[in-house]
């Protein structure tokens, strides 16, 4: 692959221009690599939930409540989707999201969460005081590569912030 610099740069530039050309007429931008947003809209949004009151609470009957859970339900309603909750431990759920069996992960995750290589962390939707007394930013997790879903969710969260 020892291309001379000039022709390598030209090839890259040509690919780039071609892509920009197709970008205008294709679906959402940015797009999902697995079309999660399109699938969830009008269908189900598969959300892994780890219990972490008051953000998320899982009842004995399997019902999910809490501030963050409500936020997710409202988001799902906005994209015309129904939430399918999967309760579990954060570490297991993070791997399920990475494997593509879940679309999202919630449970009072903070921006310092160790799962950033398994899930994409969203922009903060709130703040909380952590166990060390420091302010922490609360975030949600989205399947990596699903940037349409990420952007759609983050836009919703940003709108909530503004009230």
């Amino acid at each position, binding site marked *: 692959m020892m291309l001379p610099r000039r022709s390598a740069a030209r090839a890259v530039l040509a690919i780039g221009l071609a*892509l920009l050309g197709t970008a205008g007429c294709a679906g959402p931008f940015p797009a999902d690599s697995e079309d999660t947003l399109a699938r969830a809209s009008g269908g189900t949004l598969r959300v892994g939930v780890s219990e972490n009151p008051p953000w998320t609470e899982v009842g004995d009957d399997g019902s999910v409540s809490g501030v963050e859970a409500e936020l997710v339900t409202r988001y799902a309603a906005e994209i015309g989707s129904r939430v399918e909750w999967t309760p579990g431990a954060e570490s297991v759920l993070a791997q399920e999201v990475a494997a593509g069996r879940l679309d999202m992960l919630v449970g009072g995750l903070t921006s310092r969460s160790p799962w950033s290589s398994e899930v994409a962390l969203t922009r903060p939707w709130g703040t909380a005081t952590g166990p060390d007394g420091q302010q922490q930013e609360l975030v949600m997790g989205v399947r990596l590569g699903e940037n349409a879903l990420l952007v759609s969710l983050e836009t919703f969260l940003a709108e909530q912030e503004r009230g």
Partner: protein
Amino acid sequence: MSPRDSSRETAEDTRRPVLPPEQQDALRRAVRLEWTTLAVMAVTVAVVGLTTGQSQAMKAAWIEDCLSLLPPIAFLVASRRIRRPSDRDHPYGHHRSIGVAHLVAAVALLVMGTFLVVDSATGLLTAEKPPIGIMVLFGQPLWSGWVMIAVMAASGVAPVVLGRKKIALARTLHDKVLYADADMNKADWSTAVATIVGLVGIGLGLWWLDAVAALVVAASIISDGVKNLRAAVRGLTDARARSYDEKEPHPLTGQVEEHALGVRWVADAAARVRDEGHVFHVELFVVPRPGQDPPAVELAGLRDSVRELDWKLHDVVVALVPEVPGFQAPR
């Protein structure tokens, strides 16, 4: 035998400016350019660092920008050192610092290319899918990818302009550091384009395009790094002097020999020329015609006339020999 003891040699002679006015001027402009480069790169490093987020491609571009600070620094340090005159501890002067700077620049290029290859290859193999969300600018949600594309496009412009100017000066100065640095600037430009392509790819849901674009550019950066590294090592190990872009042996070696052969009393002449940075060090072996026994003044005259052939022929030694020593000046 050396003409060093000639009566025409004075203390002033070693202290006269090494570079003629045109090159002095080019050097001054190159120094200014390199300071500009440093300033521009420092701003780029700061801005790219702030917008990087979780994107691997942006992170790679940032590390690469940090690495491209090395050649300008090496050049500036070297261009300061070469001003010092030769002394008893540095009989060949300080021009070799240009060669050292060239080595630094070459290694920086090579490391940058290798880093990019490793980084994008692992990204490709482990199917890393870079997430890029939104930013809220003036109350409006905006896909961060657009911001990154804008930053990359802006950071790609300055290197193109600087690189082009540097290549012109590198030619005038016979400066290989400047040439390597200009190469690095071109590399900055192509990685900026590759990063933009990668970001657009991410936007289209083609997560692998980021890594593939980076790989293509990295391959060409590595090839430049290897080329420059070989050239720097060749220079530091006293290989035959070559043109500033390493494409051909430097024509001055032949010109020096021809000039010597044109002298009345010379039967045969051979020169060995090494590259000291901007300037050359010449050892000229001359064989007198039978029956000729040129005095020291004649040898000093020949030395001075060789020096006048070109400003690059800075340090010239003429040795009178019965025959050209094959092991010292192989033909």
